[in-house]
């Protein structure tokens, strides 16, 4: 359900824009921006299974645990 294959129109342009969006922000402001970004993108994706899978992949990658099982059960 969640597409983790490469899908961006322009990887380097996106990454630059992401960093640029945080320019001159305090850590607290960056966190606030990221939270808004998550909500905007989640609304764009819409699909609950896809979002659950993304949450599971992100969490397991953060914790350094294998993602396969978590993603499947989500």
């Amino acid at each position: 359900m969640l597409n983790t294959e490469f899908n961006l129109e322009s990887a380097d342009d996106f990454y630059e824009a992401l960093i640029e969006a945080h320019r001159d922000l305090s850590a607290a402001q960056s966190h606030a921006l990221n939270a808004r970004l998550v909500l905007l993108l989640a609304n764009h994706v819409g699909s609950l299974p896809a979002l659950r899978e993304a949450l599971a992949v992100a969490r397991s990658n953060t914790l350094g645990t294998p993602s396969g099982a978590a993603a499947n059960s989500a």
Partner: protein
Amino acid sequence: MAASSVVDRDFQALEFAYRRSRDQQASAPAFHDVVVVGAGPVGLALAIDLAQRGVRVLVLDDDHRLSSGSRAICFAKRTLEIFDRLGCGERMVDKGVSWSVGKVFFKDSPLYRFDLTPDPGHCRPAFINLQQYYVEGFLAERAAELENLEIRWKNRVAGLRQTAADVELEVDTPDGRYRLRAGHVVACDGSRSAVRTLMGLESKGRVFQDRFLIADIRTSAELLPGGATERWFWFDPPFHPNQSVLLHRQPDNVWRVDFQLGWDADPVEEKKPENIVPRVRALLAASPAKDVDFTLEWASVYTFACMRMERFRHGRVLFAGDSAHGVSPFGARGANSGVQDAENLAWKLALVVQSAAPDALLDSYADEREFAADENIRCSTRSTDFITPKSEISRLFRDAVLGLAREHAFARRLVNSGRLSIAATLPAAGLNTPDVDAFAGDLRPGAMAGDAPLIGPAGPTWLLRELGPDFTLLWFGEAPGWAESKAWRTVGIRREGLRDAEGVATQRYDATPGTAYLIRPDHHICARWRAPDVEGVRAALDTAMGRR
């Protein structure tokens, strides 16, 4: 404007006399089919419903007064429809203030408004606000009209033992202890249920580490522009930073204010008028009313937990309302779900007591209302987590949602200041017959029957009002001869008799000529067909009565 000629009774001051009962000097314990413990909204609603169904019912209450303080104030459309069936809905709605519009504020400015009225064509409003003492008072007055309903005040259940054949109760009174036997006991005795404790049972769940102050104030002038009746909710307002505040109107120019205080607040200090008044003044100064005069009517500092008993039925003892489950107040799911428990149980218990249905029907009460309790707990837990975020990151996302909501409509759907009580749609299994025909809309088996305006022989009426006290076969178009039966009431919607002049019923039920819905006594839909036959309807009725 017509002056009101009726002065409301002061239900808070009303005292009910303890009267010695003949049971207290009986040589052997007297037997009662049904004993209801607790004369709050849930116990009274249940007792009235049972009595209307011809069951003799005894209510025991350890006190001799109604609710002190306004307590539960929001009564939902479904609850009002139940009160209609119990014969006191009109009084509630006449006295209560109807509302459907809410406004949500973040910091110092409005975020958005919402309207809970889904669509026109319902007799009852989405909500009324009415002090709990009025609700209990109107129910108590209705109960007093029923000769097979007896309330014994200052009768405290002190002992309970189940045998195979009955329940033995020991009851303390001002004249000492006496014994009773009951076919069934229903514990409607609140969150600290004595019956639950006597049986060694528990209600378990999550306690929220937060305190709230509720205060009722009486004002001399309108608070909101144009005398509007709206629910106002603030996240993190300047007059009460980092916390939430709720403002709600009640009858008699009384307003409920609800301040989140945080876990560290001192409940004794916070309850003192000298500490409450400045908080209210600060709120009013930020409202359109500015420096309006007010008096403090009642205040309470509370904490809450979302919890429930594992099973609502233990043999001949059943639990309903707060004794069985507890929720946070956000969403008005406490008293409303309790009254809905009572309605689910009343017809089933009546059928079982009258030997018209098997005992297993009572298991469906537990199954269905445990399901509904889970839904209510889930909704109120989610609201609480949004309103009072308990971690830094939870707070971050909460504020991000609120930050986006002013400009972006999608984010408003994530704002959760309470998902207000609606009746649960019961699961497809159990008493329902699965669909065999295709239908559009939400009125599937398990859902609550929808209301609609109709024209009857005597003038305008409402669909829910036309339903029978027991099972109803709602038929669209000309019904065949077999549709008339002693086992149900047939309500036909056709060109003559009862007409769907506005087309709302036809649309809401996705009806074509020959469509029929089987509706339970508690107005849940349990089966529907495009072209039913008598065997199919009888089978669905047997399923809904727990006979198969």
